């Protein structure tokens, strides 16, 4: 629990809390971006350069932009008049607390918690690339195929239908 970790954790949690509680949807999306940036910084704090930069590139460069685009294209930037929380928020909090409790109990009871943390491996970007291209090449290809299929599907859905006369 170093000082940098605490600062980053506070930023990340504050971003996600703001994303849930703010009134304006675009503000929520921007607050979510702070959470993404905080997570990227946490990865960098753990010496995972590749994961951190990929998080920045994918989540801030693409996912955040996608979210704000969708918000703008679907419902505009008008703020809701009523309450932000749905009426069943008490049940939601209860379920969340229950899930957290179960997870915390399982993690506390895990035998891995007693062991000393192994020394952090010095993973370079080159090693990640080697692993992806040699050992895990099949999953990588499958993911690529899936994404290509999704892309083609999106194009087909968005394609203009022939005019029926």
């Amino acid at each position: 629990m170093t000082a940098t970790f605490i600062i980053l954790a506070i930023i990340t949690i504050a971003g996600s809390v703001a994303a849930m509680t703010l009134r304006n949807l675009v503000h929520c999306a921007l607050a979510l971006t702070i959470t993404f940036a905080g997570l990227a910084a946490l990865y960098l704090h753990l010496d995972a350069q590749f994961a951190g930069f990929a998080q920045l590139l994918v989540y801030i460069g693409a996912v955040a932009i996608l979210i704000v685009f969708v918000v703008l294209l679907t419902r505009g930037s008008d703020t809701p008049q009523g309450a932000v929380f749905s009426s069943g928020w008490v049940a939601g909090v209860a379920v969340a607390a229950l899930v957290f409790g179960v997870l915390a109990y399982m993690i506390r009871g895990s035998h891995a918690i007693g062991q000393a943390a192994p020394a952090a491996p010095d993973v370079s970007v080159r090693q990640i690339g080697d692993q992806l291209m040699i050992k895990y090449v099949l999953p990588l290809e499958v993911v690529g195929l899936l994404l290509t299929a999704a892309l083609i599907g999106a194009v087909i859905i968005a394609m203009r239908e022939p005019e029926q006369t």
Partner: protein
Amino acid sequence: MGNGIDQIFVDGKIWLVSQTPLVAQPIVSAVISIAALIGAFATLFALTTILERKGLGRIQNRYGPNRVGPFGILQPLADGLKAMTKEDVVPRAADHVVHFLAPLILVVPVFLALSVIPIGRNMTALDLDAGILFFFAVGAATELSVFMAGWSSRNKYSLLGAMRAIAQMISYEVPLILSSIPVILIVGSLSATAIVDAQGGYTGILPHWFLLTPWGLAGFILFMIAATAESNRSPFDLPEGESEIIAGYYIEYSGFKFALFFLGEYIGMFAVSGLAITLFLGGWHAPFPFLEFIPSYIWFFAKLLGIIALLIWVRGTVPRLRMDQLMNFAWKFMLPMTLINLLVAVLWQMMGPGWGRWLMGLALVIGPYIILGKALVGHRNWGKRTYRFAD
């Protein structure tokens, strides 16, 4: 002698750091690097604005600024003072916090992106193992800033401009990254320093720059086109489009915030040009062995000014594209060309030295260029221009 001048800034920094107490040394070292980076590139920004206005003036048969100082070279100073003394007008309906943050979120990432570029021998402010990835990762934040500026202004023109800008930046980021991948593939490293080192040395008098290979030449041209689009410069300046949407996403910015947007745009241009120099033009290496006595950072800035001159020239000569032309060009021409270029780079590496790979490379670059170009133009007849009323 040559070595002393070449390393004068590095030695100076080491000396300065060694004068401070041991605890403060990492911070002092970082501050010196950051200050040097900001100082050098802000000065270059001032120089570029005057060069650009002068150059565009020449292209358009006028003088350009010529009132402040000899030949108008003090114009940037006057502009800066004007920007600082102007009132900062924020629209009443604007979202104040987001409106305030947008220029900052543009300027900080572009300076961060600049910090991984090697500007001289041993002169990389932030020498990362994954430097190129870092460059693209922080560059992604500029899109968010454009959105924030456009949305928070509560102005339909600024929102339209932001939408255009984001669509354009996302589309051209794909060819930008894909056209730099062949270099990473050949060098086998994401570190900017390693990429520059791989381009050192000479064959005869010719340098080992990647520009002088078929895939490097095609990659450089594709990279520069995508870079022009990424930095929203003419002919890809639709997000600003003065005649249609006035100034796009920064229409509601005035005073120093506007100046910050301007600064961010130019620093972004320098950063992406610097990356082009690192990837294709041999970084700080001299073009000929007999010119190596000139310090490395002078070579970097000479190349940077050359690319800036090229961009000014393009801005002065090429008309602005239409939105559909822009998108068609990105997805139907740039993307296939960059993918083919990747293939050429792989084959180039596998075929080994010899004439065969030159023939293969040139054929695989020029052939698709002709085919894709014809397909992009389509079946339209480009005949003599006809006029409906004036004859």
